[in-house]
């Protein structure tokens, strides 16, 4: 019962946070001297009535507080306005967000599958050559600028022709069978996943190594060893469980970092994700789209943290008893 109460409390906490985020983003964008409807007015295919409707929806003739209220209300209702090309923002976001989620989920799964075991190995073989090599390798991965790495991989793809160059699907995607579709998407995902995997592996591996070292130094591990428990049981039964807990908090951070890192990678690979959408929107100063994608990014981040916290509540009984 306590767990559920705590989880509900935690979910309710995100609401004021999202309101604050929306205020920050709204005022930042309104600071800009750009007329939010300039692009729309210039677009001949958008009728003057639509422009008027947008003007009324945004309340541009009213003071900024009322503008915020109007915007927040229509946002909560799911009306995100239209882009400078006259499309619906919500539709555009609906196309892009699943793609970004797909990319980040795959990367998170992969980094955990690889990073956690590597962290354990490094901690168990602490200060051996293997540990040092792993540290150097992860340092290298951490230091490569994501966009530069993406450019290099793109160069590789162009030269060898082994990988498609950018995008998520081939032009004839619609005509493919299910299996071919699956393979097509996988094929397109490989390079962006490699880039993001490389830059985010290092942090995870190091954190796991540090946690594991902390735990291996603790009294109960020493006690278990003194009792004559075999090394395998000490590591995998006693130490690992406790070392994994703090990693769950990291999940939220990792998600945040990936959303940011993905923006540049998506841009280089022409991947149809949220990061590239916001970049294009920014470059075209498409205010509606920028606002909406900024909010969506924040919402995704907040939900990511929420999931991490809930997982932590489930796995770590100490937190429950504290509340």
């Amino acid at each position: 019962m306590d767990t559920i109460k705590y989880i509900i409390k935690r979910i309710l906490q995100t609401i004021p946070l999202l309101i604050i985020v929306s205020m920050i983003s709204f005022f930042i964008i309104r600071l800009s001297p750009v007329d939010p409807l300039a692009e729309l007015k210039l677009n001949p295919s958008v009728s003057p009535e639509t422009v008027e409707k947008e003007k009324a929806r945004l309340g541009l003739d009213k003071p900024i507080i009322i503008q915020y209220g109007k915007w927040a209300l229509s946002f909560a209702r799911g009306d995100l306005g239209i882009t400078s090309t006259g499309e619906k923002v919500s539709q555009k976001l609906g196309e892009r967000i699943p793609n970004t989620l797909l990319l980040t989920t795959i990367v998170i799964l992969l980094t955990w599958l690889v990073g956690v075991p590597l962290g354990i190995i490094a901690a168990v073989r602490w200060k051996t050559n293997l540990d040092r090599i792993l540290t150097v390798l992860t340092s290298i991965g951490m230091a490569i600028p994501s966009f530069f790495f993406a450019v290099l991989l793109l160069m590789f793809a162009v030269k060898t022709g082994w990988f498609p160059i950018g995008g998520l699907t081939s032009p004839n995607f619609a005509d493919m069978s299910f299996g071919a579709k699956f393979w097509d998407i996988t094929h397109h995902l490989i390079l962006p996943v490699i880039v993001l995997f490389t830059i985010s592996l290092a942090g995870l591996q190091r954190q796991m190594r540090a946690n594991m070292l902390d735990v291996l130094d603790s009294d109960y591990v020493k006690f278990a060893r003194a009792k004559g428990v075999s090394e395998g049981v000490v590591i995998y039964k006693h130490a690992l469980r406790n070392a994994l807990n703090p990693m769950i908090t990291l999940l939220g951070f990792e998600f945040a970092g990936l959303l940011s890192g993905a923006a540049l990678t998506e841009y280089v690979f022409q991947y149809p994700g949220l990061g590239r959408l916001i970049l294009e929107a920014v470059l075209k100063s498409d205010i509606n789209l920028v606002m909406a994608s900024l909010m969506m990014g924040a919402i995704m981040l907040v939900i990511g943290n929420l999931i991490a916290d809930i997982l932590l509540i489930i796995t770590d009984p100490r937190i429950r008893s504290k509340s």
Partner: protein
Amino acid sequence: MIRELFKALWKDKFARIALVILGIIYVSLFLADFIAPYTKDFSDRTMAYVPPSKIFTIDENGKFSKPYTYNYVREFDQNTLEIKYNLDRSKKHYIKFFGKGQPYKFLGLVPAKRHLFTTDNDGRIFLLGTDINGRDVFSRLLFGGRISMTIGFLALFVLFPIGLLYGGISGYLGGKTDMIMMRFAEGVMSIPSFYLLIILASILPSGMTSSQRFMLIVLILALIGWAGFARVVRGMVLSIKTEDYVQAAKSIGASKLRIITKHILPQTTSFVIVAMTLSVPSYILSESGLSFLGLGIQQPDASWGNMLKEAQEFTNILYRPWLLTPGFLIFVSVLAFNLIGDTIRDVLDPKSKVR
């Protein structure tokens, strides 16, 4: 303490190599005007996308000679429709060390003409080729590095005082103030940082001078990182404020601001140093990412990020790999900073002594 830190860094093999590399980079950036054979804005339009100059030390008779180079001439092949660069072997251009070349002002103050190396007036030496405008990539790397390698530090010097004060006040005052301040910081942290970065950069008014733009980019970078830092500081302040000496300071009637700045915040010094060195690389990367997108440092100014902008075109990646050199430099310097940061953390962070 600084001395001990340096000693510890020197003892570690990786950190020593990193220190030496960063030393070389910073010294060359400092002497950029002298080392670069051309000035930042020098361009030779007939020499766009010229590959790196070949330097010969053995002449056509197989004898050793003073190092010399040939100019490239652009030729258009009618059959393959390709532009080719061939060496113009009719004239040798000897490389002159400490010779007189383009005039410049050393560090913007002392007028000078001598460069580390140049060739004669009609010769061109492009160690790393040229870009689309026929500008020397090697020279621009040096001038661009000045921006790329300092902008991160400047942002940190803006960000850390803000974060320290914010976290200090929030943690010390507690109660409602603390709650409001922390919710605001969490709000800032909940926006994916790179999204915030590009949006802030995009609302910068156009038509600024390059130094104004530089300052504003520094400010924007600082705006991204302060919140997370302030939160950690607040956590530390919460535990420090219960210490006896803080109570003592309170009882002699020291003001709140004084207690925060004089008694509490100095306790966080070692954490601040660790956090600073560990975050330099991420600011270098942010700046280069921003400039790569065309939202950071603008042409004709150079930065490593905006030089890489040309690598966005396939033809450039494939046929002009020398345009990728700024990426390698970013990589090397970030790696060096990371290695130093790791070692500093090991030295200063008592918890990590276990490791």
